[in-house]
């Protein structure tokens, strides 16, 4: 995965008064307005490479652009300038229950989430038993998801996401839910993915875990990449900044 000189700006303020027609046609008047409008740079000129099979953590204070970077890698956001190249199928770990419908059963939601993450129905069927087993939900799988606890929902979501055979996994602080036993299984699963050569990108505030598990860490501050390298060094640099 190669991220080259990526800048991401978000436009602030409404565009409603310009009128849809003008926006679509980009009249000179609109262009002028858009240029003057307040912009917020979430990422500025960020470049890095992640090799196949690497486990990389992005750390940094809130609002430093970590989640924006994940959105860009996932392909849901597009860079204002610069390029991002990814090879392989990306599986984002969704926030608690995003993509689940509360009225549907766990089983129905497995199919729903599986196809949303890019599987065909046949492929979901093929993996169904493994997904249920990994989630540890047992008989509960036939009850509506609205009756699940948040931990159970998270387990099901994680279980689907890791069974779509991803080549790149994006994790945005979702491991903080679920009980201790499940958190450990999730980490074990990530470790086995790592061993199998899957690329993993996590955004995390759990610095100790980052140091223990990752191959490399990237420190983002205010939208800029300020440090990259072995987790111990980068985490130390981050801690030094916090202390300042």
């Amino acid at each position, binding site marked *: 995965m190669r991220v080259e000189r990526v800048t991401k700006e978000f436009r602030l303020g409404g565009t409603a008064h310009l009128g849809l027609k003008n926006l679509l046609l980009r009249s000179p008047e609109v262009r002028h307005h858009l240029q003057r409008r307040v912009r917020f740079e979430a990422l500025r000129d960020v470049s890095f490479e992640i090799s196949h099979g690497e486990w990389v953590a992005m750390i940094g204070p809130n609002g430093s652009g970590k989640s924006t970077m994940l959105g860009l890698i996932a392909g849901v956001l597009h860079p204002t300038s610069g390029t991002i190249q990814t090879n392989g199928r990306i599986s984002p770990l969704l*926030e608690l229950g*995003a993509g689940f419908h509360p009225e549907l059963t766990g089983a*129905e939601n497995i199919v*729903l989430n599986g196809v949303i993450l890019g599987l*065909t129905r046949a492929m979901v069927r093929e993996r169904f038993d493994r997904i249920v087993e990994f989630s540890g939900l047992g008989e509960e799988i036939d009850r509506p998801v609205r009756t699940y606890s948040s931990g159970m929902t998270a387990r099901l979501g994680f279980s689907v996401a890791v069974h779509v055979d991803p080549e790149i996994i994006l994790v945005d602080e979702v491991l903080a839910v679920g009980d201790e036993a499940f958190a450990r299984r999730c980490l074990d699963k990530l470790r086995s993915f790592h061993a199998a050569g899957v690329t993993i990108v996590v955004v995390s505030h759990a610095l100790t875990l980052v140091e223990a598990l990752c191959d490399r860490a990237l420190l983002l501050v205010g939208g800029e990449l300020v440090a990259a390298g072995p987790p111990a060094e980068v985490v130390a640099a981050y801690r030094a900044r916090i202390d300042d």
Partner: protein
Amino acid sequence: MRAGDELRARTPAATHPLQQRVDLVLVLLGKELKVRYKGTVLGYAWSIAYPLAFTLVFYLVFRLIARVPIENYALFLVMGLFPWQWFQNSINGATGFLLANAPLIKKVSFPRSLLVLTGVLNDLVHFVASIPVIVAFLVWSGGRPAGAWLWQIPLLVVIEFGVTYGLSLLVATANLFVRDLERLVGIVTMLWLYVTPVLYAWEMVPEALRWTRWLNPMALVIASWRQVFTEGRLTPEIAAAAAGWSLLIAVLGQLVYRRLEGRFAELV
């Protein structure tokens, strides 16, 4: 296993793009259909109850009170109102199709237009399920089904689909940029109903205004539905004009959507 096989096994979306999209639409549609009446006692009957209730109201007002001079007015109403409801429900719902799925749009990269497509298909299913009711009214009024329906009904479904899907896509997209649309759309479709000959016959419109029919795709579509149901016939120039509008609107919807979809995740 050869390296190529492994790659293929790992990337179904890349190797079965069409199958995957079809499955995605089917599963999303199945979800909508399952969820809509979950927990209700009458379930599916509700999808017919709504248009029937409208029919009843308009029948009371325009037949018993205002005395519109149309024969078999109840049949006349269901032939226009049922296909109209498909159009109106989809457009009114379109502003919500994307917003309701914001968490997915922000995280997962998949064709967002499929969410809009699913919404329109959902209302189409309910319309198709209500066609037997139209037929029942028809038979009760002394008419009978025509063999030509076998191609005429699918053709009209496709034509109305183009208009409905194209506009829904436009509305869903534009609403992310200008949220006022949510409110505006309900008003516009309501006014649209009254300028379209759904509750009244085209022949009752003053001569000087009749040319407006050609500017209103839904007027052409509804007129065609009535003609198909009662005569088993389509007027070529009306059907062709409707098809032209349908294509134009569908293409326009796609173009606007394509142009703006890259920013959806920032806006929902």
